């Protein structure tokens, strides 16, 4: 079990009942395979889809990851730096999902 702070913004909050912040959320560890007991970003994204997402999952997940056009930040840095899907989430991590904007 890890406790994390989740955030959805840039318009993405509309998929989450217009809620931008989920503080101190308990995410249960994954149960399958070699990674039992830990929470990877892959697992967390799936858990968010099943438990927090209010509508249109195709606008949040795609091919087992987040949909292209969504930025993911782990503790205010691009999740690429941390290792994307394989990153093991730690207690009190701040994880943000932000829609990339194209308007002007």
């Amino acid at each position, binding site marked *: 079990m890890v406790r994390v702070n989740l955030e959805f913004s*840039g318009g993405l909050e509309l998929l989450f009942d217009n809620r931008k912040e989920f503080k101190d959320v308990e995410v249960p560890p994954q149960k399958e395979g070699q990674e039992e007991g830990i929470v990877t970003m892959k697992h967390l994204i799936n858990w968010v889809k099943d438990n927090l997402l209010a509508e249109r999952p195709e606008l949040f997940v795609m091919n087992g990851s987040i*949909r292209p*056009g969504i930025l993911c930040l782990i503790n205010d*840095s*691009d999740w690429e730096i941390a290792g994307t899907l394989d990153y093991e989430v730690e207690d009190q991590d701040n994880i943000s999902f932000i*829609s990339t904007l194209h*308007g002007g």
Partner: protein
Amino acid sequence: KIPYEAALEPSQLKRYSRQMLIHNFGPSAQSKLLDSTILIIGAGGLGCPAALYLAGAGVKKIILVDHDVVDTSNLHRQIGHVEARQGLPKVMSLAEAIQGVNHQVQVEPVLAKFTAENGVELASRCDVVIDATDNPATRYMVNDACVLAGKPLVSGAALGMNGQLSVYNYNSGPCYRCLYPQPPPQGSVTSCADGGVLGPIPGVIGVLQALETIKIVTQVGKTLSGRLLIWDGEDSRFRVVNVAEPRSECCACSRGEHQTIFSLQDSEEFCACKGLVSMETHQTQSKPL
């Protein structure tokens, strides 16, 4: 060696005195500005404030690219346009506003889309490119033109009450494709015509685009290269986050076996194959998100 001050005419000394007084800025930075050409793609919510502040700062030349005309629904945020110029091409309207602020600035209005045909040539003729467009297809093409022409890109975006800004292809930092290798799928992109936008949102981002451009031209300060500004205007929350290093398998800027973009025709094919269309703002049919 002639001091920089001597190179400025008296009218310029007075006009630019307030910015030349800034510590670390001074006449040498002003001279670089007076010698710079800036390409602004999009004469709308972002392009208007970016152009007006660059005109004020005293760049040598601004090239404006846009194919659209001034519409009533633009006026709430596109402050380079006025009621009396509704129906005129945006590049002509904004050119007039620029000349009003500073007649010493040369303006080249290009009434056209930014395309595979004109893109690299336009980018090649400037020192900095400002992406002030409104759709992902053009954003990929603008990025690729900057990489091919070797020019820094100041890229801004705005929607609803949110804004984003970064500097790409500059100072060994990543390009736009390094950050966004996969384009958003069809139906996931919201335009300002769909989702709306509050005027000050592109206003702030556009002015910040002018500032980052000035910093690149003058080499004063630390730009947003390698960083991304994420601004939530609803909560007044500003975050500047570190983004990843240039992607070694980037199809645009990696200059290795992974490079697949060698011309803007390649860029066009990429967009077509990914279903990205260079949409007109008022013709978009995508769902609101």
